């Protein structure tokens, strides 16, 4: 083998080794940081292992939002029109959070069966239903009319 070829081979092997290490670490990190998404029905059916950190998505049930008078605590119910899951959150909710609006919450279910949210996301574009919430609605087989009426309401028109 010519010396410059050997050098070239050395560099290529070095890069390949580096890339494999990087790929391994990346895949490991990826597997450690996956947040699964569940619908209220899946949560109610006990499909989620206790203690898992996950995302839940659904509509905020009408008339379910209870704000504490002396702290930042908020309780509400998220629904896919089949099952309901109570959610508790402490903090300031996003601007577009309101009843009848689709939300995604991140957190885990406590022993009492209440979802303790560490983060609540509401869409910035009010005409737009997030694919996750839409999937939750579809999975629950919510009637098209239900979706439509909720969609209309969240348009705020």
């Amino acid at each position: 083998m010519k010396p410059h070829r050997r050098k070239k081979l050395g560099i290529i092997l070095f890069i390949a080794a580096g890339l494999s290490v990087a790929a391994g670490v990346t895949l490991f990190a990826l597997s450690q940081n996956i947040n699964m998404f569940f619908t209220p029905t899946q949560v109610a059916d006990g499909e989620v292992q206790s203690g898992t950190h996950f995302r839940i998505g659904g509509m905020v049930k009408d008339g379910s939002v209870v704000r504490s008078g002396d702290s930042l605590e908020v309780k509400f119910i998220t629904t896919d029109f089949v099952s309901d899951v109570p959610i508790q959150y402490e903090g300031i909710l996003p601007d577009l959070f309101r009843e009848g609006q689709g939300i995604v919450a991140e957190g885990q279910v406590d022993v009492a069966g209440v979802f303790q949210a560490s983060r609540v996301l509401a869409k910035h574009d009010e005409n737009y239903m997030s694919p996750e919430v839409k999937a939750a609605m579809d999975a629950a087989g919510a009637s098209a009319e239900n979706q439509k009426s909720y969609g209309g309401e969240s348009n705020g028109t």
Partner: protein
Amino acid sequence: MVPELGSFSLILALLLCVILGTLPIIGASTNNVLWMSLARPLSAGVFVFVGLALAILAYAFVTDDFSVQFVAQHSNSLLPMRYKFTAVWGGHEGSFLLWTFMLTGWMVAVSIYSNSMPLDFSSRVLGILGMLCFSYLLFMLATSNPFDRVVPLPPVDGADLNSALQDFGFIVHPPTLYMGYVGFSVVFAFAVAALLSGRLDSAWARWCRPWANISWAILTIGIALGSWWAYYELGWGGWWAWDPVENPPLITWLFGTALIHSLAVTEKRGVFKSWTIMLAILAFSGSLLGTFITRSGLLTSVHAFASDPSRGFFILGILAVAIGGSLILFAIRAPMLKSDFSFDLVSREIFLLVNNVILVVSAASVFLGTLFPMVYQAVTDDLISIGPPYFNLIFVPLMILLVIFVGIGPISRWKKTSVSFLIKQLTKVALASIAIGVALPLVILMEFSLPATIAMALSAWIILGMVKDIANKTANKPDLITGLRSLSYSYYGMQAAHFGIALMVTGVALTSYFSTEKSVLLDAGQSIDVGSYVFTLEGSSQVRGPNYVGDEVAMLVTKAGVPIATLLPQRRIYIATGTPSTEMAIDAGFLRDLFVTLGEQKESGAWSMTIYVKPFIRWIWLGAIFMAFGGSLAAADKRYRKLKKRAEDKALINAGEALQPVS
């Protein structure tokens, strides 16, 4: 009638693109000078007609023409004039028109500044850009014409611009980002033209470099503006969220950063040719990917446009043809791009190669984390999301590694650098950096913290390495001033950009580890301590703007009894949509930001709010400004301007070389 003229001028531009995308390229292969010389006037024509369409759309907004669907959806008669004007890019259709307009702007720029290139080359570049422009215009006319009318009856008033967009950031961020993004199309066109002509040499790299540098600089500013805007508008106290739509610009930026370094090697040493071409294709793919993700509605994100899947398929088609086509061309032509392998295992070439590998791995890991949820869903039908911890876990170590090489690279020599030379040069720098890393956080923050120490040491490593390098380069000159004058713009550009990295590293680390935040409920007159500051709620009042009503709260901030600022956060309701929106109040400073975001008012009259103290956050964007300045400075280097004559001579020689068969 006027909006129809808009559609009409888009169609005219499309037709011009058909000619631009074919004749000049065919002319370049058949040596037809007439056909080649069509490229410049045609580019100008496309620019004029797309610009006219954009002006007509802006006119429809300004005159409240709600019979145009896009205007009816994104404007309102109460909307302030500056937002009416900029609501042009407030939705999918209009923003795509702006995107296309940016491309035509770059085309005209190329046709003006391409005199130093041979005609066949500039014709190919413009022809390829014309093809791209053709696909964008076709996409626009087929799936998302901004001039579509509302049928049968126009609404009385428009639905208003999304309240989150009614902000200064919205005026500047999208155009800058698009301009930077689309700039990489030019570099891509240079790469494809090089593959088509089979000519890739130092002269090519020299033509290409200013365009890559300037696009990179603009993209840097565009991303930084987005980060700054998200920071003060979305009010979650962060500056980067690893959002699926933030990531493609970052991926493009990382590839682009690798590209400008690889181009430097190709220009100076004539190696890494195929790698440079590959990076140009990858950077461009990153920009198309960004378009695809934003406009296909496949991912959940704050940026997503409401959209229908046909658009996604269309963009996927453009993506497949552009990237697939260029990769096939690359596969056919790559064997011709043979580089002489004439450098040692310890040399600047190798350090730049390491830089490239780290940057490409970073880009790939961001890409993986962004697209993994989509792939996972397609395969298993389960919805997942990948959170910031993944990105931080991968990205932070890679960036630390990169910064270490930023210190070594500039000091090392081309071709061959001895290890003992590097050790001699850098031992003191390394020791001083570690000393600063330990000492500075203790002085500033009064506590020891490993992340702060690492960040400070890395910043010091870059800056001291830079000082050392400048000292070396000026050592043989009669005095310092003459020495400094003898260094080129591109050298200063590099150092300015690297200095920007040092600032950014400091800002990121200190903000991430030393920010304080408190969510509280306060009555009038109540106070709360956050860090060393005391925030007091003084009172609240009603406010009324042109298209909103709301409440404003006055917060007095004091430190050790001395008043520092009064912050006035608001909570608005936009009249047309009834959408609530919070307006953060920020007291910005060189060393810290004080930040209040307002929640709702309780029945007792108390206000909920989140208060943040964020040290050194401005340094992140300051760093980006230095990087962009460095990139522009490098693009303005004399050798790109005074090169016309030399390039012509060289082109003649190279044309001869290119014809020779390559082993």
